[in-house]
């Protein structure tokens, strides 16, 4: 159907696609150019696919277009319908799809190579890496999705000897894949893939829901590296460059997330955070009086403030309160109150999640401040309004060397003149850590569903 182009021409097109990806990511460094950058990356992808189809060796068009049609329908529906609060689940599934595809390419190509009597030789390692990384990314992502979607409980699932079992399963999958590569056996490679799938499940199960940002970023990196492996096997630079960019991105985000929690990546992955609160009973409990307040009092407090800093957490997303918080902020700005948002790097369930939720609520990004930039401003703030955030505001991270979160960078709301905390009830936060902020004399608590509380504050303000 299309005049066959030479391999060299197609390779040049791949180079062009790689340049599009690189410039596209470069343009993501500013929100003004980001959207165009994304389009540019997509153009690179279309170029790579179209030129691949012109190769003389590719002629099963019905097969290829059929598969693309199925994938396009599924991807488009997912992308159009997903709620912004569910973005971590969406990205988890996309990671899994990428990993599964990489493993599939490696296994199918391995089968072809052995069939035509051209065993992989020195790319055997790449076959193994692609199969194992792809397999564990596929299943690990599905488990991460299930945890985020609360299909299975988000709390860590642990049992004695778990890490030994996990290590053995992992070694088994790598060993099987290696033996398969040496013995030219696709069946064995498939078995190695299956064991890697089992490992992916075991690997993510013990990790708590609050640690999912790290897990998703890591699986993102794995899906990219799986693609790199497939690129080595096929000797294809488009796959190698694309995969390397994703691997770098996922790795960097993993490190950023772990740093924001003041924990090593190893501690997040193998530490089973859920074990820590059990030892907290004696030392973590905070003594003192909690002062409850009313929507009316909060409305007065906010109306007469000069500067209000809003600190949103995952609780805001759960309550779907972001739109009403945006409306509250608009009201305050109309009254001449300066409003800013303080975003902790691990607020939400994936890197940057909170920013997307607030952008959806039409909060301008010029009002969104990273932790390092906003912390110096709290001493000048009249009210810090904490909505659905707990651990990231806990001053114990600065003052209590015995606390499990000691050393974690926090949003320093306790430096504000007054603090209002919107909270469902007096249960401790996800990590099971009580928060001394709640008994600080300048803190008042407004109990109830975050969204309803915000709506009550808005109506109280309008009555004034």
């Amino acid at each position, binding site marked *: 159907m299309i005049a066959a182009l030479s391999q060299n021409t197609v390779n040049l097109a791949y180079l062009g696609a790689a340049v599009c990806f*690189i410039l*596209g*990511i*470069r343009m*993501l*460094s*500013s*929100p003004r150019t*980001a959207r165009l*950058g*994304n389009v540019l*990356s997509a153009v690179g*992808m279309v170029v790579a696919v179209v030129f691949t189809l012109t190769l003389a*060796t*590719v*002629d*099963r*068009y019905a097969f290829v277009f059929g*598969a693309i049609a*199925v*994938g396009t329908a599924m*991807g488009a529906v997912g*992308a*159009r319908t997903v709620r912004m609060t569910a973005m971590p689940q*969406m*990205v988890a599934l*996309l990671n899994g*799809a*990428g990993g599964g*595809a*990489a493993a*599939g*390419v490696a296994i*199918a190509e391995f089968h*072809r190579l052995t*069939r035509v009597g051209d065993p992989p030789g*020195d790319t055997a390692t790449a076959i193994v890496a692609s199969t194992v990384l792809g397999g564990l990314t596929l299943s690990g992502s599905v488990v991460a999705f299930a945890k985020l979607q609360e299909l299975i409980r988000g709390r860590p699932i642990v049992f004695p000897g778990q890490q030994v079992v996990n290590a053995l399963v992992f070694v088994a999958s790598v060993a099987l894949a290696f033996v398969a590569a040496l013995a030219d056996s696709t069946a064995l490679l498939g078995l190695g893939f299956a064991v890697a799938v089992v490992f992916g499940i075991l690997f993510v199960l013990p990790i708590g829901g609050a640690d999912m940002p790290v897990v998703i970023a890591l699986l*993102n990196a794995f*899906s*990219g590296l*799986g*693609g790199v492996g497939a*690129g080595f096997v096929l*000797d294809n630079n488009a*796959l*190698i460059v694309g*995969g*390397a*960019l994703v691997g*770098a*991105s*996922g790795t*960097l*985000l993993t490190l950023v997330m772990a740093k924001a929690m003041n924990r090593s990546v190893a501690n997040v992955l193998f530490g089973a955070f859920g074990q820590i609160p059990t030892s907290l009973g004696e030392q973590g409990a905070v003594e003192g009086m909690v002062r409850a307040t009313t929507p009316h009092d909060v409305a007065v407090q906010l109306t007469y403030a000069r500067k209000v800093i809003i600190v949103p957490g995952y609780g805001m997303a759960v309550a779907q309160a972001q739109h009403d918080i945006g409306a509250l902020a608009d009201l305050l*700005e109309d009254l001449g109150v300066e409003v800013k948002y303080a975003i902790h*790097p691990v607020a939400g369930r994936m890197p*940057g999640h909170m920013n997307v939720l607030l*952008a*959806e609520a039409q909060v301008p*990004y010029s009002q969104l401040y990273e932790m390092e930039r906003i912390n110096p401003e709290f001493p000048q703030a009249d009210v810090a309004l904490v909505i659905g955030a707990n651990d990231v505001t806990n001053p114990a991270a600065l003052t209590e060397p015995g606390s499990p979160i000691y050393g974690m960078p926090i949003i320093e709301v306790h430096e504000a003149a007054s603090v209002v905390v919107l909270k469902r009830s007096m249960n401790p936060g996800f990590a099971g850590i009580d928060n001394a902020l709640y008994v600080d004399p300048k803190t008042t608590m407004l109990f109830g569903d975050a969204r309803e509380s915000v709506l009550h504050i808005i109506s109280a303000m309008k009555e004034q």
Partner: protein
Amino acid sequence: MSAALITSLTVFLLAAFLGFELIRRVPTLLHTPLMSGTNAISGIVIVGAILVGGASGATTIEGAISFVAIVLATINVVGGFLVTDRMLGMFRRRRSENE
């Protein structure tokens, strides 16, 4: 080690270093679109799946595995780029923009 493999390694390492330098400049504001956007880029394995499964000599098993791989990679590409575009379309600098 073959010359092809050494070339592949060179390309991989250079791209990885470039990737680190590029991604370091992406503000935390855009980390979620960064993830979904790079996710779409990792869908480039679709090219590999087409090369293997789209070849006339592909066997049934190669075809079946490649079919699944093309479907998964396409989900990655289409879903990733579209959802990233949807997110980035929501970011605005001022309150009045796009209203």
